[in-house]
């Protein structure tokens, strides 16, 4: 029960972070290139991502032994989680510039406004920009959904959590009619990184043959241990740092 809740939280938070980033690109494309092609591009990307999960999820469950699956996807989770955690810790300690959605939005609007537009009908640029933005941000979510869902045997929960995050971010984005710069993205990224590294450690360990004390309860112990390490790391890294200005670089 606890591990299911943690899994849902991890997927929801990871998908929220990526959806906020995708929304920034979609809004910039919609404002500058028109909404029809932009929405079509975003919808097409979501369909492709859903098809990837539908194609690979059940096939992997059916044809790959669970211990191999846990070892491989656990390793993938561990590697992805360490990347997220490293970036979030460097940002939290001021050694790396924080992700600035406002700056990204302004840059994209300026870039897309300068491109020629067709006289009428569909706008290929708007479609492609929107498709790429949603697809590239969504691929990371697909990997997280597949790896967390498959290794725990709860793919349905992982898919539902990801879909819920997309719906929530889209609804809030439409309501406020702008990019969601106020979302505490780095804090969420740090939390997701901690959970991905913990799940990755747990599942790759199980796949390698480790029998964890407390079974699934060990995940909580791993999260707590890595959280303490993260706290100490930020304190250590903050010593003698130079605070970096916000950056429009992709996450």
């Amino acid at each position: 029960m606890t591990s299911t809740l943690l899994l849902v939280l991890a997927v929801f938070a990871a998908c929220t972070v990526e959806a906020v980033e995708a929304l920034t690109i979609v809004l910039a494309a919609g404002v500058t290139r028109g909404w029809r092609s932009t929405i079509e591009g975003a919808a097409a990307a979501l369909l492709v991502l859903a098809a990837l999960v539908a194609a690979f999820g059940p096939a992997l469950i059916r044809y790959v032994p669970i211990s191999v699956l846990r070892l491989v996807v656990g390793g993938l989770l561990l590697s992805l989680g360490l990347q997220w955690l490293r970036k979030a810790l460097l940002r939290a300690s001021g050694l790396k510039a924080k992700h600035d959605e406002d700056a990204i939005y302004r840059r994209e609007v300026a870039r897309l406004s300068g491109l020629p537009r067709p006289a009428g009908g569909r706008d290929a640029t708007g479609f492609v920009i929107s498709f790429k933005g949603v697809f590239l941000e969504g691929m990371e979510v697909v990997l997280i959904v597949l790896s967390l869902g498959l290794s725990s045997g709860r793919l349905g929960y992982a898919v539902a959590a990801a879909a819920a995050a997309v719906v929530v971010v889209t609804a809030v984005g439409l309501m406020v009619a702008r990019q969601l710069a106020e979302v505490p993205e780095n804090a969420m990224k740090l939390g997701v990184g901690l959970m991905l590294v913990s799940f990755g450690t747990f599942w790759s360990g199980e796949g390698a043959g480790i029998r964890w004390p407390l079974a699934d309860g060990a995940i909580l112990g791993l999260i707590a241990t890595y959280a303490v390490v993260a706290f100490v790391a930020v304190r250590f890294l903050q010593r003698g740092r130079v605070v970096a200005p916000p950056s429009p670089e992709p996450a």
Partner: protein
Amino acid sequence: MTVAAALRAFGRFWWDFLIGDTPELAGGTLVVIVIAWAIAHGPGALVVCFPAAVVVLLAASLWRGRRG
């Protein structure tokens, strides 16, 4: 776009996605999984060495990030 260019772009996408600017994390993950396999065949108390190896890997990567 030729098939070769498409394959190169596909490979570049996955390289950036999985390895990017932190090759030490991708390579280090393989090393710690080998450590996990060794631990699994040793005494049960050694289980703590696995998360400890992950912490060492993260610390080494953060140290590199701090300098670079």
